């Protein structure tokens, strides 16, 4: 019998499908490493600088004037330390983790949803804070957080922080919301015009809401969810999805959606709220009564750093009062250094971003990496690891 090419292809596909369908369903039992980081030693003293340093950073964190001649805090660093800065902008936490694994970079500005992964895998080294003079002025709320330290040992230098706020259109949403229920249980009031952050980490926002809305779930930490709690959060998000107009990850997209009225209520960052208001949209952003999730970025040093001394110099430089003020203002976040507020060009900047208001940050659950070992200390259950969050997020969007 002579098979036509079409038949041959069809047969090949059929064989493949059959092989797949009969295939084993569970081999991915990759053991969780938990949070027992490899025993790495922090540097005890600084040596001679190596002449260059390779950084991975969020856009806007390492500016040498090439994007905007007025925005430059790298040139002075290079002049003072003799360390040539090579920076690579990463678009997501996952990309940062991946780049750090190559071992070609010395330091990274990791958010909380990346930092624990870097610590656990031994890609990030502990940091000797005594070698970073400016560290003493960092806000206490940022020191030894669950996302940047293990057993009291810092694994990086805090850079800045921000909260995920609830933003609403003051003309179209009334009465003014006070709770996250505006985007969850009461979201149907604005069907098709609700927006949410497009990332698996947003599941924590739902968990944070459930923490107070459904106390019987006993959620303590929105990043430590056992299967039952996780399922409840996912169910809530699936319900929310019916009312969502679009998810945002690109902040320009959110600004345009709020300006045109396609989105009227949803999560945002302070800097986006400011820009949207500047463009004439009637919006307001605030921390609802349940508190909120947030992010705090940390400069971490690679365990395989080839230029550790320059990397230490950089970590000290980026949180020095003047530079920290510059970068915080450019990016739109609360600076980490308590003395930075004296140097901002807009004198009300620190108030707008609640930089010094520790009680404000008490209500903010900073992004963390969910792992199997529950981060809230429970040992009788297994928590849902981040990989499952990613899968669930695809299912939520449908």
């Amino acid at each position, binding site marked *: 019998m002579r098979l036509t*090419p*079409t038949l041959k*292809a*069809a047969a090949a*596909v059929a064989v*493949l*499908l059959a*092989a*797949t*369908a009969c*295939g*084993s*369903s*569970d*081999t*991915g039992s*990759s053991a*969780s*490493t938990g949070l027992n980081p490899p025993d790495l030693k922090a540097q005890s003293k600084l040596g001679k600088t190596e002449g260059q340093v390779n950084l991975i950073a969020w856009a806007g964190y390492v500016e040498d004037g090439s994007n905007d001649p007025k925005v430059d805090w790298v040139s002075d660093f290079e002049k003072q330390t003799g360390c040539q800065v090579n920076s690579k902008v990463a678009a*997501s936490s*996952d*990309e940062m*983790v*991946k780049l750090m*694994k190559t071992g070609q970079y010395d330091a990274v500005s990791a958010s909380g949803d990346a930092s624990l*992964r870097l610590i*656990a*895998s031994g890609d990030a080294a502990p940091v000797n804070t005594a070698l970073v003079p400016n560290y003493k002025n960092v806000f206490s709320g940022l020191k030894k957080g669950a996302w940047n330290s293990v057993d009291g040992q810092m694994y990086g230098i805090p850079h800045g922080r921000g909260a995920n706020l609830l933003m609403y259109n003051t003309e179209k949403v009334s009465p003014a919301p006070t709770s996250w229920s505006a985007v969850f249980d009461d979201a149907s009031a604005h069907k*098709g015009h609700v927006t949410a952050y497009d990332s698996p980490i947003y599941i924590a926002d739902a968990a944070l809401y459930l923490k107070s809305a459904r106390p019987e779930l006993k959620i303590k930490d929105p990043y430590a969810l056992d299967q039952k709690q996780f399922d409840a959060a996912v169910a809530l998000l699936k319900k929310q*999805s019916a009312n*969502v*107009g*679009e*998810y945002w990850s690109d902040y320009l*997209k959110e600004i*345009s*959606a709020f300006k*045109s*009225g*396609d989105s009227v209520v949803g999560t945002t960052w302070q800097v986006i709220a400011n820009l949207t208001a500047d463009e004439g949209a009637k919006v307001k952003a605030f921390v609802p009564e349940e508190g909120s999730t947030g992010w705090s970025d940390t400069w971490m040093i690679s365990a395989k750093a080839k230029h550790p001394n320059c990397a230490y110099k950089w970590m000290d430089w980026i949180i020095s009062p003047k530079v920290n003020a510059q970068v915080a203002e450019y990016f739109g976040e609360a600076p980490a250094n308590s003395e930075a507020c004296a140097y901002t060009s807009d004198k009300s900047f620190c108030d707008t971003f609640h930089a010094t208001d520790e009680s404000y940050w008490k209500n903010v659950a900073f992004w963390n990496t969910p*792992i*199997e070992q529950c981060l809230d200390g429970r040992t009788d259950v297994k928590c849902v*690891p*981040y*990989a*499952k969050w*990613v899968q669930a*997020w*695809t*299912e939520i*969007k*449908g």
Partner: protein
Amino acid sequence: MTSLPQAVGRSPVRRLAGTLHRRPRLRLSLLLTAPLLWLAVLYLGSLAVLFVSAFWTTNSFTSEVVKVWSTDNFHQLLTTPVYRQVILRSVGVALAVTLLCAVIAFPVAFYTARIARPERRPLLVVAILTPLWASYLVKVYAWRLILSQGGLADWALKPLGLSGPGYGLVAAIIALTYLWLPYMILPIHTALEQLPANLLDASADLGARAGRTFRSVVLPMVLPSVAAGSVFTFSLSLGDYITVQIVGGKTQLIGNVVYSNIELNLPMAAALGTVPVVVIVVYLLAMRRTGALSSL
């Protein structure tokens, strides 16, 4: 053999040319080595790597790729409802875009190829091509503005008591149709242009009305070109994920799911990535039957 002494006196280049002339096989292999290497190593090779890596797994915590053979990813692909849904939706969008393109392109091509004055035709073709000169992103963002609340679409439909579709699946189909329309118009235009006028006359002489002529004469001759155009519109729509991100609201297509998996679960992304490859191969085989590939 009088030419031989002359050949000896020629420059090396000439001699090489002579050798190549006498040995057609050598000539052919030299010509084809580079493109074949490109095809086999870079193109088919990367497809093979994609396919192989779909059988690996990842460490759930560090998301490092673990090179352990397993069919889990394909198993998941076939059993998880959300993936099936996304795949069906993507194929549906590609088919809808193709159909819309064909319906819109036919009258346009008929006008540019047969009705417009011959000296204007090249100009019209240029006009059809001009949107291809603008950046893809600019065009899609323009659609984002058009379809936004209170935007052009809303404003234009208001007198009819309707409103625009807003961001979503419909918006994505509209934007994709706009983007790929020229790829459908051009092949149809070419086919219609080559349609011998005497066939139409003959059909009329035999008493056929316009509709009958269209069905029995024009359509069968142009159909392969429609199929050729559809290869472009179908495959381009199937692979697109940026348009959907910008105007699709919360819609997810295969590309978006691949994109969201690529950092954390590369093997799953690879498994998802083989889906459009398989779909397009099947589509191409189906189109080959219509003779479309010879009229590309």
